[in-house]
């Protein structure tokens, strides 16, 4: 029942175009709802064409697809929107693992094909082995390079994503692991992998690639363990990028253009997201990858003054006196699951004729666009949700700003204190408004461990406690 080569190639082209349309469709919320069907259709077409070209093992394939489908369906429906960062990390690890497996299988197939070629039974081969049998020695050399890259990137993606998953879900400590000489360790690991790759080019067999898997895996885990929690948005998008490059490398290995196209799309998408995230924190990509904040030798100006506490009744009073309110959500809102209460507050204030908007910092949360998804889940209309650049000028005209579980993204030290580790990072200028209400669990420093002078300003009042409880109290007071 195998499809003809031409038909399969055509299916791949259509699938590639559909994938591009799916990504391009994300330029607007309404378009996006249709765009996802392009993606699904493209994937369906690609899988059907691949199965058709293979034409065997249909039962095993159907079984695996069904099992995988059930697993995916289960995960996707059970996950909460606040857990999206760790889900993404988890999914990335799967792509990395699959890339390693496929790379190893490719090596096995290659050896089989070569031995079959030497014994003259090459015409009995099928599938991938048949393709390999037709390759020249130079092409085989290149194939080995591609294989190496696929396994190397795949292994880093796999273990890195697992560690990122652990950190994001709270199963591992979110602090940056700083082993002595960690840069040396990473460099040594890369050199060893390159050396093994060179040996593999010679006559070293599968063992060298398995060793690469182990070393690259350890390096991926170590690399991500060394990055602090506040940098997680960059890490997740970087792993997203890696999973794409791994797919592209495997595409080269298998000589499959669809894999190359898709891998390149995903890889560049992740790279752009990482770039946007880094820009949001005013840090270079290298400094994020090479290590976290809170390193030694950084002395930022200590903050003088005291934090003023406020109770829910006064906060509610301030809100009912205000005409315009801006809400700045951070990761703390996700942790406390306060988004529904926040949405309710928005509705109540809106019903009283007040102007309520949300200001979203590019790196708020642990995932690019994390806050938008949470607010959407809580049914906040997206035209009330505004990006940093658009809203920063409006703070001086705003009566009350509510900061919910956000810290570094509203830290005035970024602009005022050149010694601060976050100096120069673009921040939401909430302190320019008449009153800032900060909902915070306790009086300590934030995720990055940096003191925040905002909390000590005259126009700042602190409402301590769990963000969700505080919100509900304010709602009760508003009546």
């Amino acid at each position: 029942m195998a499809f003809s080569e031409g038909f399969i190639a055509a299916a791949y082209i259509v699938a590639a175009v559909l994938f591009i349309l799916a990504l391009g469709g994300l330029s607007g919320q309404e378009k996006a709802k249709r765009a996802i069907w392009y993606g699904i259709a493209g994937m369906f077409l690609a899988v059907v064409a691949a199965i058709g070209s293979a034409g065997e093992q249909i039962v095993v394939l159907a079984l695996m697809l069904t099992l995988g489908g059930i697993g995916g369906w289960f995960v996707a429906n059970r996950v909460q929107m606040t857990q999206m960062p760790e889900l993404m990390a988890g999914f990335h690890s799967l792509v990395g693992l699959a890339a390693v497996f496929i790379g190893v299988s490719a090596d096995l197939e290659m050896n089989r094909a070569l031995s079959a070629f030497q014994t003259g039974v090459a015409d009995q081969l099928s599938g991938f082995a048949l393709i390999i049998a037709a390759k020249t020695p130079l092409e085989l050399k290149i194939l080995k390079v591609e294989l190496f890259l696929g396994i190397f990137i795949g292994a880093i993606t796999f273990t890195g994503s697992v560690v990122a998953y652990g950190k994001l879900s709270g199963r591992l400590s979110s602090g940056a692991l700083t082993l002595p000489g960690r840069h040396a360790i990473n460099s040594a690991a890369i050199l060893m992998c390159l050396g093994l790759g060179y040996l593999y080019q010679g006559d070293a067999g599968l063992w060298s690639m398995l060793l690469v898997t182990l070393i690259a895996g350890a390096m991926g885990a170590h690399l991500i363990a060394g990055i602090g929690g506040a940098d997680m948005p960059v890490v997740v998008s970087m792993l997203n990028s890696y999973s794409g490059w791994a797919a592209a490398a495997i595409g080269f290995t298998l000589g499959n253009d669809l894999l190359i196209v898709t891998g390149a799309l995903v890889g560049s998408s992740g790279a752009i997201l990482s770039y946007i995230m880094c820009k949001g924190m005013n840090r270079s990509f290298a400094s994020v990858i090479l290590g976290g904040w809170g390193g030694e030798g950084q002395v930022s100006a200590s903050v003088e003054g005291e934090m003023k506490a406020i109770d829910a009744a006064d906060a509610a009073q301030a809100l009912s006196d205000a005409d315009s309110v801006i809400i700045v959500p951070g990761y703390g809102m996700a942790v406390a699951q306060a988004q529904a209460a926040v949405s309710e507050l928005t509705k109540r204030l809106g019903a009283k004729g007040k102007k309520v908007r949300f200001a979203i910092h590019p790196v708020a949360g642990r995932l690019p666009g994390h806050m938008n998804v949470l607010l959407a889940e809580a049914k906040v209309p997206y035209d009330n949700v505004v990006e940093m650049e658009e809203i920063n000028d409006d703070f001086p005209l705003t009566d009350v700003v509510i900061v919910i579980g956000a810290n570094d993204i509203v830290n005035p030290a970024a602009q005022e204190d050149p010694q601060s580790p976050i100096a120069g990072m673009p921040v939401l200028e909430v302190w320019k408004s008449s009153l800032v209400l900060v909902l915070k669990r306790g009086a300590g420093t934030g995720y990055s461990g940096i003191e925040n002078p905002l909390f000590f300003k005259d126009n700042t009042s602190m409402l301590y406690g769990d963000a969700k409880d505080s919100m509900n109290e304010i709602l009760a007071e508003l009546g």
Partner: protein
Amino acid sequence: MRIGALREVVLNEARVAMTPESAIKLQKLGHECLIQSGAGSRASFSDTDYESAGVRVVATADQLWSESDIIIKVREPLAEELADSPDGKTLISFITPSSNGALLEQMAGKRMTALALDMVPRISRAQKMDALSSMANIAGYRSVIEACNHFDRFLMGQMTAAGKVPPARVLVVGAGVAGLSAIGTAVSLGAITLAFDVRPEVSEQIESMGAEFVFLEFDELQADGAESGGYASPSSPEFAKQQIEKFLQLAPSVDIVITTALIPNRPAPLLWTADMVNLMRSGSVVVDLAAERGGNCELTVADEKIVTKNGVTIIGFTDFPSRMASQSSSLLATNIRHMIDDLTPQKDGAINVNIEDDVIRGSLVSHQGEVTWPPPPPKVSAIAAVKKSHTVAETAAEKSLREEAELKKSLNISGIGIIIGSVLCLGLGTIAPSSFMQHLIVFVLSIYIGFHVIWGVAHSLHTPLMAITNAISSIIIVGAILQIVSSSFLVVLLASISVFIASVNIFGGFLVTRRMLAMFQRR
């Protein structure tokens, strides 16, 4: 305590220190309220209104003095009002202690506790009792209304069938509370409004009200207004010269000038000279809100409206708030109520004059037989000091130059990148076989497309973007499917596992993306 509001004896004073509304709130603090008969009549509050608010109406001032513990009124008491008053009372009113030394002595002699509304410090906590701001707000509004009354044209520009009417140009000098209020009123009436102030930091407030800030080309920084309690300080001679030139240049083109410049404890600065008035068109109007302290305009006559030879009307009324007596009484009565609120911390009708309190100490001018004016400087500074490093806003020309330079630099960098990339690619082409190069073409073009497509993705959709790219990166499943046909068991096993993992990813990724996108909704 019994709180009594006196009727004002000054001829043109229509305001009253207590309204029925404020009386109700004062009673909630545990006080009893009295009012002299007819005190509110010129502010449209009748005796019956007061009675129905639970206020006892008494016939004469003497009766009120003897029956009340706290006397509230608007203007400072005249010497003859105090002459027969009993000792030891508390008084709350405007007092202007700087020019009423004899009055202070008289009050101290009567062991009077006197709180001056005009001495309330300008700190955030005391804004609710800042009667000067309340009155300035009204004066600013009324100044525009008075100006319109004498200006024989529209303020708003109109296109009518009978021809085009240009909008009036209003210049507001001094952007304090009164100035900002005048700006707001003039803007809302449709005039083109310009505003000037010696404090550059208020330009933001001026622009926020919809007026245009009149800049002087000047590099010496003015003393920071925050140091003197939010008020302007006298200008340097160079600055004044620049300012006069600017005003002479503006005078022929403005229709209405409203001057509001006052410096605490000094005569009003002279800003609008006779030369400037002479340059103005016939029919123009000058309203001088500083008339009481000598006026900002050289030709102002206090309490009068004059018309100059060249037909410019100059209004020097000093009773703008009183001309809107009902409104100003409401605000003033509320300010006084807030002050009494602060004096009654237990809300039990007992007055506690706490001289440790900055606000109370600041407004206290006579206490326990002594004159307590001027007060020591307050512990809290009025307005947070503005950073001295005012970066000069870059002009449009500088901006375009800088952007050009930046663009050139980035173009150069990408140009070098393209050359290096091309050389590397050509080098690779000389050794790599054509089959590889074909895949490379696809790869490079895909990255290129990817970059263009992804830059268009909305920021708010970044999480769905990651979910969907994650789902489609599982296209790696195609590789696994192609390998599964192998006859080697190990390969089949590995490929099967890969298919399983990848399909978890495909289904999970697409479903979760759909879940997220379905949540995004328009208002």
